[in-house]
């Protein structure tokens, strides 16, 4: 996703519904996070599960929250997603950076990049991939789901190498 779209995803979600953005940084969504910092709306956690915990507290206080993370952190969070978010039906919006999407990404991302779609399916966590073209539609889709008490994920692909 290009810089402009990433910044627009942030402002769009904030304008439409989301009041809190909690997470662990990921370079795939660097500009999304940067835009959030510019607007003083980002809370950084030490680990992804911690971010999910904090966001859960905010949602219980009726303040909608998004949790952002890299897919490595998504793998860290599996038990928290099943035993907190899904068990209590916490309407949380995840934004996950898809490392290992490109076949020649760094080796540590290869395996998780491969199994990520299956992991999301196994969890039953509905998800859509954001692109420069479709992001408004897919953000609207995600917001409509969490308004109906369903946790969902939006995915940003790592479509460049560095």
């Amino acid at each position, binding site marked *: 996703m290009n810089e402009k779209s990433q910044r627009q995803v942030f402002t769009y979600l904030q304008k439409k519904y989301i009041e809190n953005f909690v997470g662990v940084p990921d370079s795939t969504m660097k500009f999304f996070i940067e835009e959030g910092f510019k607007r003083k709306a980002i809370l950084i956690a030490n680990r992804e599960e911690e971010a*999910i915990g904090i966001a859960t*507290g905010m949602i219980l206080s009726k303040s909608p929250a998004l949790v952002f993370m890299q897919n490595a952190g998504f793998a860290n969070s599996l038990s928290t997603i099943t035993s907190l978010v899904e*068990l*209590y039906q916490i309407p949380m919006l995840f934004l996950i950076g898809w490392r290992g999407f490109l076949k020649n990404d760094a080796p540590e991302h290869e395996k998780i990049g491969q199994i990520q779609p299956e992991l999301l399916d196994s969890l039953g966590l509905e998800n859509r991939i954001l692109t420069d073209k479709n992001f408004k539609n897919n953000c609207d889709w995600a917001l409509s789901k969490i308004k109906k008490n369903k946790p969902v994920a939006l995915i940003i692909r790592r479509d460049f190498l560095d």
Partner: protein
Amino acid sequence: MIRREAMEIICNQYKKSIIISANGFISRDLFSTLEKNTNFYMIGSMGLASSIALGIAIKKPGKKIFVFDGDGNILMNLGSLVTIGSLQPKNLVHIIFDNKMHESTGGQPTYSETIDLSKIAKASNYKIFKINSKSSLTKILVNIKQNAGPILLLIQVSKSKEKSLRVDIDPVEIKRRFIKAIN
């Protein structure tokens, strides 16, 4: 003092408080001590009670938020002490019932036996109270009414002989009534 006794003293002084309780015997003890809608029994996701409480404390600055935590639980999410200490929520009271073991899984030791958790919390800019008797607990509970948080009460407790009953409320119902009660 066992954990249930400590909880009874706390719940007696703060009858209507908002409490996030850690999984395992801690939530079970709270459920048996004072069941109410403003209790959020976190029955899974070990380690995250203080993080959930932080999220609420940020959003509800006018309300005192209690965490009922354990040594095993906080050791699983030590980073939470650093985040809470950095954000300095004045309304957060973090209570750790420290039995120096994973009592819920059979009494295996934790490292709180060798490392003093209050020192870590102190380095993270918490206000610290170490408690090992019922009388000092009662006194400090009065004292913290005037104190701004984040506050840590590290309460030394011994192993309980009896098990409290499991929380038998459906998690979605725990959430529904909690949201209704605190908002």
